[in-house]
């Protein structure tokens, strides 16, 4: 009994201390890193703190899991941070702080253009998020294997079928284990699915209409050994898995991932073989689409210091700061001005620089469906459903038709609950 009394006094004391600290205009920035992002932002924000006496921006580096799973619950309970780096751009819309009253909206429109829409849902169409890193999906190709096999690499405008055929030939002629691999992620297959005619978003709501042809082809590739079956079949649920390790070991000819892998390829492949990035292959429906993505920095309405929060984000959105962050974190810029000038990525080898440039060059090929899908607030639900059900079809728990039917049912159930 004594113990509980003791603890509650200590508790009260602890609360008093934290309340005292909050009055010194402390801004909490919940951040996650795929590389060095949080460290770079922390460093850039010291400059902000120097310019703004009395403001203390604390960068809390958390596991990505905390951003995806816990942040929404914390926001609902009113205990969220002031600023966060997030990926579910549409899904968290209801909590965003509109920066419009505090920033130069003209500059923001000019700098971020279309990506601002990814943070808008319905009539909540303010200025919410600064897209801090733009990613695009696309293929890495092992050029050395092509050379060894003496197979001509398909050129621009080649289809998925062309690449599958060529990669299979290469894998047969060399000791590569798999012709192709795609990351286990609903986001990664979205681009190819669009190229095969999937709609994904129609009139602002999600749909799996037109997903059939891609599902059919993809499951078929997994069955006949064109795709590395391990990637999708060795996991369950909506778990993410990549095939970077296989590609780095020279076991995969054609690896469909995205621009964020460039750094890792650059460091780890080294001189082992030559690799290059090509544009996303085309599908029978016409488009040769990759899928855009990335992360952005947003402020939340529940903050006690909306003005400072807006100021912090606006500071990071300025062209020079943004360019420096992009260069240091080796991410593609979503800032149109920075993109136009071009970024000299810090410490990148010529191969990496070329790869990032190739990814950037593929951005105009992104189909409107894919672009809209990235900003659709229900896309996380759809990613999860895609991965779960396609995996079941690949391991044979469901037929492709059953999987597609389940996908539609799941989506319907999800949407009826999310209303």
């Amino acid at each position, binding site marked *: 009994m004594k113990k509980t009394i003791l603890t509650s006094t200590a508790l009260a004391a602890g609360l008093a201390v934290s309340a005292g600290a909050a009055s010194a205009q402390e801004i909490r920035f919940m951040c996650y890193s795929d590389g060095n992002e949080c460290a770079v932002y922390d460093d850039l924000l010291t400059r902000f703190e120097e310019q703004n006496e009395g403001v203390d921006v604390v960068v809390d580096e*958390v596991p990505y899991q905390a951003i995806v799973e816990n942040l929404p*619950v914390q926001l609902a309970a009113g205990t969220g941070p002031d600023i966060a780096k997030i990926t579910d751009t549409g899904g968290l819309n209801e909590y965003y702080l509109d920066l419009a009253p505090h920033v130069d909206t003209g500059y923001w429109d000019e700098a971020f253009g279309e990506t601002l829409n990814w943070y808008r849902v319905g009539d909540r169409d303010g200025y919410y998020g600064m897209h801090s890193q733009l990613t695009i999906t696309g293929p890495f190709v092992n050029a050395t294997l092509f050379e060894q096999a003496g197979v001509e690499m398909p050129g621009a405008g080649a289809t998925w079928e062309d690449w599958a055929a060529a990669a299979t030939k290469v894998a047969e002629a060399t000791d590569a284990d798999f012709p192709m691999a795609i990351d286990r992620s609903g986001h990664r297959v979205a681009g190819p699915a669009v190229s095969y005619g999937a709609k994904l978003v129609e009139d602002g709501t999600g749909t799996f209409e037109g997903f059939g042809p891609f599902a059919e082809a993809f499951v078929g590739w997994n069955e006949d050994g064109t795709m590395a079956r391990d990637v999708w079949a060795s996991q369950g649920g909506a778990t993410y898995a990549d095939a*970077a390790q296989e590609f780095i070991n020279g076991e995969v000819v054609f690896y469909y991932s995205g621009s964020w892998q460039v750094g890792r390829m650059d460091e780890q492949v080294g001189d082992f073989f030559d690799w290059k990035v090509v544009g996303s292959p085309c599908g029978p429906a016409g488009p040769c689409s990759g899928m855009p993505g990335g992360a952005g920095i947003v402020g939340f309405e529940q903050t006690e210091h909306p003005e400072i929060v807006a100021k912090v984000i606006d500071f990071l959105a300025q062209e020079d700061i943004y360019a420096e962050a992009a260069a240091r974190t080796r991410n593609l810029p979503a800032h149109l001005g920075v993109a136009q000038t071009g970024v000299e990525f810090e410490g990148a080898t010529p191969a990496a620089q070329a790869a990032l440039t190739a990814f950037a060059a593929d951005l105009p090929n992104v189909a409107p469906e894919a672009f809209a899908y990235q900003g659709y607030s229900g896309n996380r639900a759809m990613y999860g459903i895609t991965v779960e059900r396609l995996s079941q079809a690949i391991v044979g728990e469901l037929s492709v038709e059953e999987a597609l039917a389940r996908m539609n049912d799941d989506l319907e159930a999800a949407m009826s609950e999310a209303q």
Partner: protein
Amino acid sequence: MSRLWSFLTATRGRDRLHWTDWVSYGYLIFGVLLMFGPVVWLVLSSFKSPNELDRFPPRFLPYAQETLEIEGFDSPLLAFIVTEGELTGEVVGQTRRAAGRAEVVLPADPETRIRIPADTLAPIEDVAFATENYTSLFERFNFLQFFWNSTFITVMATALMLLVNSMAAFVLSKYEFRGRTAVLLLVIGTLMIPQTVVLVPLFLIVTEMGMFNSLWGVIIPGAATPTGVFLLRQYMITIPDEILDAARMDKASEWKIFWRIIVPLSAPAIAVLAILAIMWRWNDFLWPLIVLTRTENFTLQLALNSFQGELQTDWPSLLAMTVLTLLPIACVFMFLQKYIATGIASTGGK
């Protein structure tokens, strides 16, 4: 059959080793390999560079390719030995490689660049422990702060849990009172509910109580563990009632009986529970992840997992951190397991 059972049930050894002893030792040594081997692998892996981690087939010890300092080149060149052609057996430094051809130089003659097929080069490698996996951790963040938070949570939660649980177990095993069965069922009922499925309601309760972003928000809910009550109660039942009756004759208060007689006699079970409690709190991840969001409150497990991004995981740092997190708990275990032994010895004689 009876032979087998004599082997399994014997408690006193003979002067010379019986065949059953050999089987026992065989089983135990196999156990050591199976239980310990994977952990050794983990520790060795934590000293590997990212390239070495991704390599197939994996190698037991960490290796790194040697480099050559050659005049005229700013950075050291990767060292190779040539396996075919004119230069067979020569050590060379590689300057460039593209499309299956490599450009190399001999250390003695840095001016002449020689082009040879890349597959005639074999890398020269040496065992190298990548200690920078560890040292970079200390540069990167405030390791001691996280260590302190983890320790504080673990110690407080364990102490609280041991006290509260043994008090409850005492009355549930040694008292006859109305409602005892109900309470016991309640405890067992609580066992059915893993924290994972009540994360959200529990989070709302803890937030409502003002314990969000406080270490107490991890400590106090963690103390309500039914496993402990159940475990201790089952153990305390085996303590003979006569001891208690004798103490009551001597006019000892119930509290004194509890902590002077019951607690010491339950030492083995309490030691087991202590180890478990320490381990649970030390390794706890999902719950602290939702309650603690500020760096100054982070535990080691949270810091460890912040190496996991959306798309990339910093494996070398994560592994090194894992090993560092494992060390203290292994030490605690080494210390506590002696208590289990002595505790058992003292009750065994009764």
